[in-house]
C-alpha cells in the first residue's frame, strides 16, 4: 500500500493539471512555429520596403537600375546606378560553377550508388561531409592564396577573375549536389536496375538510359539547390573575384557580383544615403532570386511525383 500512495497522488495531481499541462505544451510549441512564420514574413517586409526606397524615395529609375552597365554612385554631378554588371556577374559565376560541379557531383553520386556501393560510399560520404564543414571564408582564403597566384602565373590576367570565383564556388556547391543526387539515385526502386540488367544492358547503359532519366527531376533539384547556394555566397567570392564595376569580357577578367558589392560597400556608405539604399535594392534582388529558386525547386519536385 505504501508503494501505491505516491502513484495515487501523482495520478490525482496529473488529473488536476491535465488540461493546464496539455494546453500549455500545445501553446508553447505553437508559439515556436508562429515565431518562424513571423521571422520569414518580417524579413520579406523589412527588406522589401527598405529595398524599394531607392526607387520610391530617391527616384532611381528601376529600368535603368537593372539594365544600365554604369555604376558610378560617388560621382557628385551625375551619379549613375546601373547594377547590370553585378547581376551578370552573379549569374555568370552561378551557372559556370554549376557547369563544373554538376557533372562532378552527379558522377560522385553514381560512383557511390552504382559503381562501388559498399566501400565507395564509406570513403566518399565522410569526404563530402567534411567539405560541407569547411567554412566559406576558408574557401575564400585558400582561393586567394593558392588559386589566384596560380591563375596569374599559369593562365594569365591578374588572377582575380571570374575563373577563380567559379572554381571556388564549384567546390563549395559540390557537396550539396552530391548528397542530394546520391539520395535521389539510391532511392530509385531496385527493379529498374534489375530489369535493365536482365535485358543484357551494361552498367553504363543502365546508368545512362534508365537511372539518370528516372532520377532527372531530383538531379535537377540538386543542381538548382547548388546554384541557389552559389548565387547567395558572399565572402568566398568576394575574396577572389576582384570586384570591379565593369562587365567582364572573358573568364580571366575581374568581375563583381551582387553579394560582393553589398559586402564591400555596406560598411562604408552612410545609412540612408542613395548609394546605401541601392545596396538594399541589390539585397532585395537576392531575396527575390532565392524565392525564384524555391519556386523552381517546387516545380521540379511536383514533376517528380508524377
Amino acid at each position, binding site marked *: 500500500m505504501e508503494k501505491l500512495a505516491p502513484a495515487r497522488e501523482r495520478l490525482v495531481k496529473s488529473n488536476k493539471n491535465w488540461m493546464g499541462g496539455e494546453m500549455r505544451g500545445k501553446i508553447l510549441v505553437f508559439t515556436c512555429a508562429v515565431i518562424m512564420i513571423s521571422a520569414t514574413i518580417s524579413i520579406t517586409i523589412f527588406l522589401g520596403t527598405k529595398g524599394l526606397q531607392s526607387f520610391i524615395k530617391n527616384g532611381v529609375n528601376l529600368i535603368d537600375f537593372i539594365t544600365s552597365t554604369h555604376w558610378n554612385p560617388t560621382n557628385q554631378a551625375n551619379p549613375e546606378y546601373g547594377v547590370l554588371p553585378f547581376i551578370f556577374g552573379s549569374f555568370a559565376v552561378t551557372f559556370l560553377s554549376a557547369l563544373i560541379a554538376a557533372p562532378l557531383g552527379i558522377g560522385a553520386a553514381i560512383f557511390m550508388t552504382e559503381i562501388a556501393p559498399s566501400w565507395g560510399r564509406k570513403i566518399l560520404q565522410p569526404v563530402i561531409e567534411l567539405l560541407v564543414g569547411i567554412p*566559406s571564408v576558408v574557401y575564400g582564403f*585558400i582561393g586567394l592564396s593558392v588559386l589566384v597566384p596560380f591563375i596569374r602565373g599559369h593562365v594569365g590576367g591578374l588572377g582575380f577573375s571570374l575563373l577563380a570565383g567559379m572554381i571556388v564556388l564549384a*567546390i563549395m556547391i559540390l557537396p550539396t549536389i552530391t548528397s542530394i543526387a546520391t539520395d535521389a539515385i539510391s532511392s530509385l526502386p531496385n527493379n529498374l536496375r534489375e530489369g535493365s540488367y536482365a535485358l543484357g544492358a551494361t*552498367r*553504363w547503359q543502365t546508368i545512362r538510359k534508365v537511372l539518370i532519366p528516372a532520377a532527372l527531376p531530383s538531379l535537377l533539384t540538386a543542381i538548382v539547390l547548388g546554384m541557389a547556394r552559389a548565387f547567395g555566397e558572399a565572402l568566398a567570392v568576394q575574396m577572389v573575384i576582384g570586384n570591379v564595376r565593369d562587365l567582364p569580357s572573358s573568364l580571366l577578367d575581374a568581375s563583381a557580383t551582387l553579394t560582393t558589392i553589398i*559586402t564591400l560597400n555596406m560598411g562604408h556608405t552612410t545609412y540612408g544615403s542613395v548609394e546605401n539604399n541601392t545596396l538594399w535594392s541589390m539585397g532585395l534582388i537576392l*531575396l527575390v532570386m532565392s*524565392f525564384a529558386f524555391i519556386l523552381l525547386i517546387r516545380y521540379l519536385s511536383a514533376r517528380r511525383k508524377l
Partner: protein
Amino acid sequence: MNSKTADRIATGVFVAIAIIIISILVGLFSYILVNGLKYVSWDFLTTPSSNIRAGGGIRDQLFNSFYILVITMIIAIPLGVGGGIYMAEYAKPGKVTNAIRSCVEVLSSLPSIVIGMFGLLVFVNTTGWGYTILGGALALTVFNLPVIVRVSEDAIRAVPLDLKEASLALGITHWHTIKTVILPSAFPSILTGIILAAGRVFGEAAALLFTAGLSTPRLDYANWNPFSPQSPLNIFRPAETLAVHIWSVNTQGLIPDVTEVSNGSAAVLVISVLLFNLVARWIGSLITKKITATK
C-alpha cells in the same frame, strides 16, 4: 565502339571523379593544416589581435566565436526543437502547416548575407543597439532555426510509433508523452543534428559582418560583470569572430603578417569545425550502441 568498352570507359570516368573529389579534400586539408599549424601556438591563441603591428594573436576572436555560438544556441535550440515538435506531433495537414513548411524552406534557402542585412536593419539600426553580440546571435538564430527544426522533426518522426501508442494507451496525455517518451528517444539524433549545426554557425561570417561588427573592444578577462563594456560576457558589445577575422585581415587589414595570422586562424577554425563533426559522430554512435545494444 562496342558497349563493353563504353562501359569500361564510363567506369573509369566515375572512378576518376571520385579520385578528383577525394584529392580536392585531401589537398584542402593538408594545405590548411600544413600551412596553418606552424603558426598556431599557445601564444597565438592567447594574445589579443593587433590592427597594425605584426605578432597579433586571436584570443578575443576565439572567445567571441564560442560565446556567440553559445548565445545563439541558447536562443535557437528551444525555438527550433519546439517548432520541430509542433511540426511532427501537432501540425495537421492543411494551410497553416503548409505555410510553416514554406517558411522553413524559405528561411533555409536565404543567403546568409541577406540574413546579415536583415539583422543590420532590425537588430542594429531599428533597436539602436549598434553592433552587438546579441544582434549577431539573433541573426545566426534566424540562419540556424530551419536546420534545427528539420533535424528535430525528422528525429521525432523516426521514433517508433509503438512507443507513443503504448504511452497513450496507459492514459498519459499527449504532451506528457512527448516530454517523457518521445523526446528522450529522439534525443540522440537531435543532439547530433544540433552539434553539426553548431559547426556551421561557428564558421559563418557573412551574417555577422553587419550584426556583430568587425571590431572587439579591449577586453578584461578578470571582469565578470556582464554589464561592464570591458567584460567579455557583455552581450551588448561588438565582437569580431574568428571567421570574420580571417576575412577582415585579408581584405582590409593593415598588419604585415596577414598570411601568418590568416593561415593560423584558418587552421584553428577548420580544426574546431572538424571537432564538432567528430564529437557529433561519436555521440551519435555511442548513444545508438547504448539504445540498440549492438556492438
